């Protein structure tokens, strides 16, 4: 299962896409316009209990930008 992460208000938002839809289409549509996003395996996410402390460097490592 893949998820989409993107920066939002100083934290990382996690987007759980509809598995029946193309995840790239969902990312383009549901990530805010102009915001970089990264598609990850859900199993690679850290413990969600510490979600507010997550960090990710989108400077060069990202899969797209919200449309």
């Amino acid at each position, binding site marked *: 299962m893949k998820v989409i992460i993107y920066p939002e208000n100083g*934290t990382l*938002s996690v*987007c*759980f896409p509809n598995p029946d839809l193309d995840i790239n289409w*969902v990312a383009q549509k*549901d990530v805010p316009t102009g915001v970089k996003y990264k598609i990850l395996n*859900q199993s690679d996410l850290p413990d969600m*209990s510490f*979600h507010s402390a997550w960090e990710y460097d989108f400077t060069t490592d990202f899969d797209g930008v919200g449309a």
Partner: protein
Amino acid sequence: MGTLQVGGTTLGVKNTVTNKVDLSNVGDVTLTSSADIKGAINASGDAPIYACRAAAHVEFASDYSTQSVTKFLNVSSVTIQTADGDQYTVNFTTALPDAAYVAVVGSGRAWSANQRNMSVLVQGPEMTRSTSACQFGNVYANTGSEKMRTFNAAFFSE
């Protein structure tokens, strides 16, 4: 078997076993105002019926890191944001007709023995509500928020 004809043209064939008419060859079908839709869905009485335009069900595993069961109906994704407590945004695949829909949420946190804490999702003026997405805030014990284990939301509109 019986046939449904208009002007000598066969539009459909009725199956007498299932009591249904196959209209697959017709293309788009427009029902008249006298069509008994309420009867077809067992909705008795005079109260009108309205449609559920989108819905989502997500179950998260105990460590919140995995999503075990999902059902998305006209929902492209559910997003969790943590900037100000946990907030959940439901993004619609196809936009709803207007933003004055009814958002019904029945979500919560399962518990193990002796931990009957409750989290409640609310949809109010502080959260986004548009034809393309609806946001819910998560309240936990009036002091913070805690991840949902089960997320359910349905959206009704004219």
